C-alpha cells in the first residue's frame, strides 16, 4: 500500500492553505511559544555544559585538590610532598570579621604602607560572619581571581593585605585602603573581589568572601579554638611536572584520566576516610549534575507550555475541520478518496506543526540569548553561547511530534465526513463520528508518545511517568471544572439579565464554544505561576515563623569554656537575653554494632550513607528534650553514668540520621570523643525541627557523660533591636575574635535574596505558559470568529450598535478569563495547601492579595487579546465580512 500522498493531495493542500496562511499561522502560535521555551532551555543547558568543558580547569582552579577538615598528619603530608608539581595551600573557615571604614580617605590605597593597617584610623565599624580563605602560593593556577583594581590578587600575599567581596564592600561603604580585622590581626584591603574561579556570585549570600595570606592566619589563635577549618592543597602539573605515583616512575600529564588515577592512588596511599581528593573531572561532573537538574526542571516547565500550545492547536484543528467539512464533502462528491482528503488536511496540519516548530526554534535561539541574565548569579563563569544543533533538533522535533499527535483525533474524523453534506446541510461534529475504539487507541498512543518524548528529555522513565500523570490529572481537573462552570452558567436565569450579559454568558456554552480549551490552557498557566509563588512564600514564612516572639535572633558559637562568663556578661550589658547556652562536643563514629566504620564502608551490601559514617559529629548533652524535639520511638533517658564505668550510654538519634546509618533501637554506636571511645546504644529516635534558629543536634547525649570532655558552647540570644545586634557583635569580636555570630535576620535576608533570584528564573519560564495561553486564546478567538461572525453581522444588520456587539464580546472574555483564573488559582491553592500540609508542616494562609492581583492581570490580558482580535470585525462593513467569510 502506498502511504505517500499523491500529487493532487499535495497541490490541493497548498492551494487551500495559501489564501488563509495568516490565520493558519496564528493557530500554531501556541506551538511557537512552547518550542521557543524548550529550545531555549535545551540550548542553555548545552551552553552551560560547553562552558564547563571549555573552562573545566578554571572550575577547580587546579589539576587536583586535596582537602581535609583537620590539619594534615605526617603520612598525608609526605604523600603530598611526594606528588610534586606546583602546589598551593589554603586554610578556609568562617569567622567574624571586623570591617573598619577609615576616617582619612586620601593617602590610602593598595600601595599604602602596610604599617598603616596596624593602626587603622578611627572610623565606623561593622562585623559580619565571613568566609576566610587564607592562601599561600599561586592559586588559582587556572583562571584568575578578578579584582578591582585589577591585579590585586597577584600582590596581596607579598603585601600582607586582604581581598574582600564586593557586596560587603558596598554594604558597609568600604573602599580599597580601609581595614579589616581577622582574629587579632589588622589587614588593609588591597582589592575588591569580583570573581573567584569556580564560584558563582551566589556564594556571597552564605557570607562575604575574604582572601588573606596564609601566614597571617597562622599567627592568630583562630585555628585552635573550635572553628570548623578546611585545609586544602592544590596542584598543577605541567607537561612533565610532578612525580608519578601511578606507575612509580616518571611524570604525569594533567589529563583527566591520569588525574582520576592519581586521585585513587592518593586515597589508597593515605588510608584516611576524611580526606577528599577532587579532580577537574569530578568537579565538572558535580557541576553538570546540578545544571542537569535545573535544566530538567525548567525543561518540564517549557514542555508544559508546549503541551498547552499543542492543545491549542488540537482545538484549532477541530474547529478547522468542522469549517472544512463541506469542502471535504464536495471533494468526496467529485471523487476524492478518503485517503486523499485526509492527506490534504493532514499535510496542512503537519505544515502548521513544522512552521510553528521552526518559528519556535528561531524564537528559542533569541530567548537563549537572554536566559543567562536570570542565572548569571548562579553560574561561576561567563557563559559561552553557541547554537546547539542537538538542542534545536530535539526542541523542533518535539514540537512537530507533539502538535501532530494531539491533532490526530480531529484529523481522523475527516475520513468520516459524508459526501451527502453537499446537498443536506447539517452540523458536522468531527469527534462524534470517530469510532470509540479509534478514540481510545489514539488517546493511548498519544500518552505513550508523550512518555517516550519525556523519557528522552528527562532521561528517566519514572520521572516521565509521574510528570505525565500529573499533567493528565491537572488537565482533567481543569477540564472537569470548566465543564462544571459551564453547566452552572447554563443554570443561570439568563432571562433576568440584560441583553448584552445574556448573550455574552450564553456564548460560553453555545455550540462551537472554546470555553473548555481556553480555561484549560490559561488555567494551567495560572496553576503553575500560583503554586510556584505560594511555595516560595511558604519557604519564607517557614523561616519567619521561627524568628518572631521570644525566638533567638542572634547566635554565638565556638565559645570556649573559659569565655562563657565573659560572653554572657557582654551580651547582657548590651540588653540581650541569653536564652540558652549549649555545650558542644566533637566526636567521630568509629564502630557500628562493633563493626569498624571502615569495614562497613567497604561492605557493598550495607546501605549506610558515607556522610553519616564519616562526618564529624557535634553533639550536645542535656536532661530534657527541647520544643523542637519529639520522640518517635523508644524512650528518652535524660541522665546516665560517667564514661569509664562500663556503662553503655543511652543516646537519642534524629530519625533521618538513623535511616542513613541504617540503625534502629538498641543498636550500638561507638564514638571517638577526642581519643576516648564511648560505647552508646540507641535508646530513642526522635524528630527534630532543624528550621528553628536555636542549635539542634542529630545525636543527643544524656547529662552526666560528656561533662568532662573538651567542649565549646553555642549561645542563643534575644537582642531587642538591630542596632544592639550590630553593637553586640562588634564588642564580641573585639573581645573574643574566635567567636562567630549568626545574625538570624541577616540569614533570613540572604535566603530571601536567594529565593527571589530563583523565583525570577522560574517565573520567567512559567511566563511561557501564560504566553502560550494568551496565544491560544488569540487563535481560538480567531477561529471562533468564523463561528460568531454571522451572528455579529446579523446583529449589526438588524441594528445592533458597535457598543452592544463589543459589550457582548467583553462579557464573554471577562467570563472566560475569570473562569480560567478562578480554576487555576483554586488548583494552585489546593496544591499549596497540600504542600503546606505534607511538606512544610504549616498552617496554610495563602497570600490572597498577590493571587488576586495576578488574576486581574491575566483577566485583563484575556479581555485585551480577545478585543484586539475582534476589532477587525467591528470595523468592517457587514457585507464585506459576509462575502469574505463565504
Amino acid at each position, binding site marked *: 500500500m502506498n502511504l505517500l500522498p*499523491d*500529487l*493532487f493531495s499535495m*497541490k*490541493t493542500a497548498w*492551494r*487551500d*492553505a*495559501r*489564501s*488563509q496562511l495568516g490565520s493558519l499561522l496564528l493557530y500554531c502560535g501556541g506551538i511557537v511559544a512552547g518550542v521557543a521555551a524548550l529550545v531555549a532551555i535545551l540550548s542553555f543547558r548545552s551552553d552551560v555544559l560547553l562552558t564547563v568543558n571549555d573552562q573545566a580547569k578554571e572550575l577547580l582552579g587546579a589539576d587536583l585538590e586535596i582537602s581535609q577538615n583537620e590539619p594534615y598528619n605526617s603520612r598525608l603530608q609526605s604523600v603530598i610532598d611526594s606528588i610534586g608539581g606546583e602546589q598551593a595551600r589554603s586554610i578556609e573557615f568562617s569567622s567574624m570579621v571586623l570591617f573598619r571604614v577609615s576616617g582619612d580617605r586620601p593617602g590610602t590605597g593598595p600601595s599604602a604602607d602596610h604599617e598603616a593597617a596596624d593602626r587603622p584610623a578611627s572610623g565606623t565599624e561593622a562585623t559580619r560572619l565571613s568566609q576566610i580563605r587564607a592562601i599561600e602560593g599561586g592559586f588559582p593556577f587556572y583562571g584568575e581571581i578578578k579584582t578591582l583594581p585589577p591585579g590585586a590578587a597577584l600582590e596581596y600575599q607579598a603585601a600582607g593585605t586582604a581581598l574582600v567581596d564586593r557586596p560587603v564592600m558596598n554594604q558597609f561603604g568600604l573602599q580599597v585602603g580601609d581595614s579589616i580585622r581577622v582574629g587579632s590581626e589588622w589587614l588593609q584591603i588591597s582589592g575588591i573581589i569580583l570573581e573567584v574561579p569556580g564560584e558563582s556570585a551566589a556564594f556571597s549570600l552564605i557570607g562575604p568572601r575574604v582572601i588573606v595570606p596564609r601566614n597571617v592566619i597562622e599567627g592568630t589563635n583562630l585555628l585552635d579554638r573550635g572553628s570548623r577549618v578546611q585545609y586544602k592543597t592544590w596542584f598543577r602539573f605541567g607537561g612533565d611536572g610532578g612525580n608519578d605515583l601511578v606507575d612509580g616512575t616518571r611524570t604525569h600529564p594533567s589529563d583527566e584520566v591520569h588525574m582520576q588515577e592519581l586521585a585513587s592512588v592518593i586515597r589508597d596511599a593515605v588510608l584516611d576516610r576524611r580526606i577528599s581528593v577532587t579532580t577537574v573531572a569530578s568537579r565538572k561532573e558535580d557541576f553538570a549534575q546540578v545544571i542537569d537538574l535545573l535544566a530538567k526542571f525548567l525543561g518540564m516547565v517549557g514542555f508544559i507550555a508546549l503541551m498547552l500550545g499543542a492543545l491549542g492547536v488540537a482545538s484549532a484543528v477541530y474547529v478547522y475541520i468542522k469549517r472544512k467539512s*463541506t*469542502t471535504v*464533502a*464536495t*471533494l*468526496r*462528491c*467529485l*471523487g*476524492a*478518496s*478518503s485517503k*486523499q482528503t485526509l492527506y490534504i488536511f493532514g499535510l496542512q496540519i503537519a505544515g502548521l506543526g513544522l512552521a510553528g516548530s521552526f518559528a519556535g526554534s528561531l524564537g528559542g535561539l533569541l530567548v537563549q540569548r537572554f536566559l543567562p541574565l536570570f542565572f548569571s548569579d548562579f553560574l561561576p563563569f561567563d557563559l559561552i553561547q553557541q547554537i546547539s544543533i542537538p538542542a534545536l533538533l530535539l526542541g523542533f522535533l518535539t514540537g512537530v511530534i507533539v502538535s501532530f499527535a494531539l491533532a490526530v483525533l480531529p484529523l481522523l474524523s475527516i475520513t468520516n465526513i*459524508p*459526501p*451527502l453534506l*453537499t*446537498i*443536506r*446541510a447539517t452540523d458536522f461534529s468531527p469527534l462524534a463520528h470517530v469510532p470509540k475504539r479509534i478514540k481510545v487507541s489514539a488517546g493511548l498512543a498519544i500518552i505513550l508518545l508523550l512518555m517516550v518524548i519525556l523519557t528522552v528529555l528527562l532521561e528517566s522513565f519514572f520521572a516521565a511517568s509521574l510528570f505525565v500523570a500529573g499533567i493528565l490529572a491537572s488537565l482533567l481537573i481543569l477540564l472537569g471544572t470548566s465543564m462544571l462552570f459551564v453547566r452552572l452558567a447554563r443554570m443561570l436565569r439568563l432571562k433576568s439579565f440584560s441583553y448584552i450579559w445574556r448573550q455574552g454568558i450564553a456564548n460560553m456554552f453555545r455550540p462551537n464554544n472554546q470555553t473548555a480549551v481556553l480555561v484549560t490552557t490559561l488555567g494551567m498557566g495560572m496553576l503553575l505561576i500560583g503554586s510556584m509563588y505560594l511555595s516560595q512564600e511558604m519557604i519564607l514564612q517557614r523561616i519567619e515563623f521561627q524568628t518572631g516572639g521570644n525566638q533567638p535572633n542572634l547566635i554565638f558559637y565556638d565559645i570556649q569554656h573559659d569565655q562563657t562568663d565573659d560572653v554572657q556578661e557582654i551580651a547582657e550589658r548590651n540588653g540581650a537575653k541569653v536564652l540558652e547556652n549549649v555545650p558542644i562536643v566533637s566526636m567521630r563514629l568509629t564502630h557500628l554494632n562493633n563493626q569498624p566504620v571502615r569495614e562497613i564502608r567497604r561492605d557493598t551490601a550495607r546501605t549506610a550513607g558515607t556522610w553519616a559514617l564519616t562526618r564529624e559529629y557535634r553533639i550536645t548533652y542535656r536532661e530534657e528534650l527541647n520544643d523542637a524535639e519529639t520522640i518517635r520511638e523508644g524512650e528518652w533517658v535524660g541522665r546516665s553514668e560517667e564514661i569509664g564505668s562500663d556503662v553503655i550510654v543511652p543516646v537519642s538519634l534524629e530519625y533521618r540520621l538513623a535511616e542513613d546509618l541504617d540503625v534502629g533501637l538498641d543498636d550500638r554506636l561507638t564514638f571517638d570523643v577526642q581519643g576516648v571511645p564511648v560505647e552508646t546504644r540507641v535508646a530513642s529516635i526522635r524528630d527534630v525541627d532543624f528550621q528553628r534558629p536555636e542549635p539542634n543536634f542529630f545525636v543527643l547525649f544524656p547529662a552526666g557523660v560528656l561533662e568532662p570532655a573538651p567542649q565549646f558552647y553555642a549561645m542563643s540570644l534575644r537582642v531587642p533591636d538591630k542596632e544592639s545586634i550590630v553593637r553586640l557583635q562588634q564588642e564580641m569580636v573585639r573581645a573574643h575574635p574566635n567567636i562567630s555570630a549568626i545574625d538570624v535576620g541577616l540569614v533570613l535576608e540572604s535566603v530571601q535574596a536567594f529565593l527571589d533570584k530563583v523565583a525570577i528564573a522560574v517565573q520567567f519560564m512559567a511566563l511561557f505558559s501564560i504566553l502560550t495561553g494568551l496565544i491560544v486564546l488569540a487563535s481560538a478567538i480567531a477561529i471562533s470568529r468564523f463561528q460568531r461572525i454571522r451572528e455579529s453581522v446579523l446583529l449589526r444588520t438588524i441594528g445592533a450598535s458597535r457598543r452592544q456587539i463589543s459589550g457582548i464580546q467583553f462579557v464573554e472574555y471577562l467570563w472566560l478569563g475569570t473562569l480560567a483564573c478562578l480554576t487555576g488559582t483554586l488548583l494552585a491553592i489546593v496544591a499549596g495547601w497540600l504542600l503546606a500540609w505534607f511538606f512544610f508542616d504549616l498552617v496554610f494562609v495563602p497570600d490572597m492579595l498577590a493571587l488576586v492581583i495576578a488574576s486581574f492581570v491575566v483577566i485583563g490580558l484575556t479581555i485585551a487579546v480577545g478585543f484586539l482580535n475582534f476589532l477587525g470585525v467591528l470595523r468592517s462593513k457587514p457585507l464585506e465580512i459576509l*462575502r*469574505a467569510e*463565504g
Partner: protein
Amino acid sequence: MLIVKQLTKTYQSGSRPLTVLNRVSFGIEPGTICAIVGPSGSGKTTLLGLCAGLDQATSGEVYLKGHALQQLDEERLAFIRNRHIGFIFQSFQLIPTLTALENVMVPVELRGVAYDDVAGKAEHLLGEVGLAGRIHHYPAQLSGGEQQRVGIARAFIHKPDILFADEPTGNLDSETGEQIEDILFELNRKEGTTLVIVTHDPDLAGRCDRVIRLKGGEIASDSASAPSSALSQEVPETSSKTSVS
C-alpha cells in the same frame, strides 16, 4: 444509464421510523434529460443522493452504468463518482480557497492528470460559460450566478456519463437562473451527457425530455414509462462486485 429498483429509504425519527422513499423504481436512458419534481419533503433530494452514490438506501438497488452502487464501499463509490458522475449543487459548493480555474480542474486533477494537461480545457470551459476574464478569481469575488457557472464548468470538465443537478437555479434570481439553464442545456447538448435535474421550477422541468413527479416518497407520475428493454439490457445478472481498478 441509470436503473433504480424498489428503492426505499427510512430514517429513524425519534422512536418511529420515517419512510422518505417508498419502493421507487425507474430507469433512465443515456442522453436523456430527466427532471425530478415534487413538493418539499417528497424525497427528491434523497432520491438524487441515492442515485449518485452519496447515501446508502435502506433497501432496493441502484445500477449506474451497470455498477451496483449498493454493493460498493465508500472508496469505490468515490471512484465511480469521479469516473462517471458530475454534480451541480443548489449552493454551488465551490471550494472557497481555490480560484475558479482550480475549482474547475479538481475532478480531472484527482485522476492524476498534470496541471498543464487540464488547465487549457478548464480555461476553455470557463470561456464557454462566460467567465474567461475571471478564471483567477476566488468564489467570494464572484456573484451567485458566476459561481454557478463555475459549478457547471466543473461538472462537465471530466466528461461525465451522467450529471446530477440539485436545484441548480434555486439560489438565483429568475433572469440569472434562465441564463444558467441555457448554459447547462447548451453544454449538455454538446457533450451528450445524461442529465438528472431535481427542481421546483416548472419552467425548468418543462425543458426536460422526461419529468418524474414524486409525492410522499412515491412516484406520482412519470411523463415517460421506463422501457423494460433498458432494464433487461443494463442490469448485470451476476454483479455481486464491481471492479473499479
